[in-house]
């Protein structure tokens, strides 16, 4: 049996309201959709299964980094050639997937950046700017939006950027590893819908991310 080439990996935690449309739209552009349910207490798992996604279930909530790692490990074990990761809360439009895949032949990783808009909460805008500057200072990599989770990479690149962080720090860990491994990357703009201001990266996460970046720099040489 030929390996399915492009896999979408969607981490989900209590996303019963939005997961169905994300899966159905993503299926138009990829060969397989895998949803990793991170111990949701709602019906995310059942809805995702009915929508036709492959569902992996964490028996307890581990965090975004661990959830994405499970999904990407699974996709890699199924001989996926390219992996696209996107959020389950309808922030990311699956219709953008072809814009990622068309870049994947030339580049190892495709990062995305959210266009600055009045919609973007101030805390997020400031936090993003601060983390980006810290990333540039510590690692010499200029990424417009270090926290945008809509990304694509080849399975070969995944082996080099496989992160250890189990929380939101995984986004920055991935960038720092890509920089260290000198992977070829490109950034593309995406539109974003902010549906829930209590989800996603918080100020506390932001502080943890910057501290982790310093820690990795000093102790891991990443």
């Amino acid at each position: 049996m030929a390996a399915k080439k492009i896999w979408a990996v969607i981490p989900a935690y209590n996303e019963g309201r939005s997961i169905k449309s994300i899966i159905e739209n993503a299926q138009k552009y990829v060969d397989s959709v895998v949803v990793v349910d991170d111990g949701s207490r709602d019906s995310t798992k059942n809805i995702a299964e009915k929508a036709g996604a492959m569902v992996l279930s964490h028996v307890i909530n581990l965090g975004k980094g661990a959830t994405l790692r499970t999904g990407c490990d699974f996709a890699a074990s199924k001989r996926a050639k390219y992996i696209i990761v996107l959020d389950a809360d309808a922030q990311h439009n699956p219709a953008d997937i072809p814009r990622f895949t068309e870049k994947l032949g030339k580049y190892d990783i495709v990062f995305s950046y959210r266009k600055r808009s009045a919609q973007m909460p101030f805390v997020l805008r400031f936090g993003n700017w601060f983390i980006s500057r810290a990333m540039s200072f510590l690692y010499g990599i200029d990424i417009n939006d270090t926290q945008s989770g809509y990304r694509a990479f080849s399975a070969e690149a995944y082996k080099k950027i496989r992160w250890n962080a189990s929380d939101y720090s995984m986004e920055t860990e991935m960038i720092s590893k890509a920089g260290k491994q000198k992977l070829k990357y490109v950034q593309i703009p995406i539109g974003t819908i902010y549906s829930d201001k209590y989800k996603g990266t918080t100020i506390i996460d932001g502080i943890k991310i910057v501290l982790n970046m310093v820690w990795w720099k000093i102790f891991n040489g990443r």
Partner: protein
Amino acid sequence: MAIGTIIGQAIGMMFGIFMMYYTFLNYKRKQFTGNEFVFWTALWIVFITIALFPGILNPLLPLTGALRALDLLTIVGFAFLIFSVFYNYTLTRRNQRQLEAIVSNLAISKRKK
């Protein structure tokens, strides 16, 4: 003996007795093995003894440069506290990684069945 010293010793003794009780409770709940119970009980007995008779540390003062037994006790206490924090950190990280690996492998292996 100053009243402050007596109060300090009383607090130290009560703390030691409470910790002995807590150690015993953990042993009865089968959270601690017999060896762990003996180790921690011995530690709290030493703690109470030093709190009541700090003078027994006097022979160590010239060796450590501390002026009073209480200073030495404070230094040793801080060192123990820092070690405990570090030890707990490494233990928590190890458990976290093991837990993540178990949960992830379980999710993948269930899907592959």
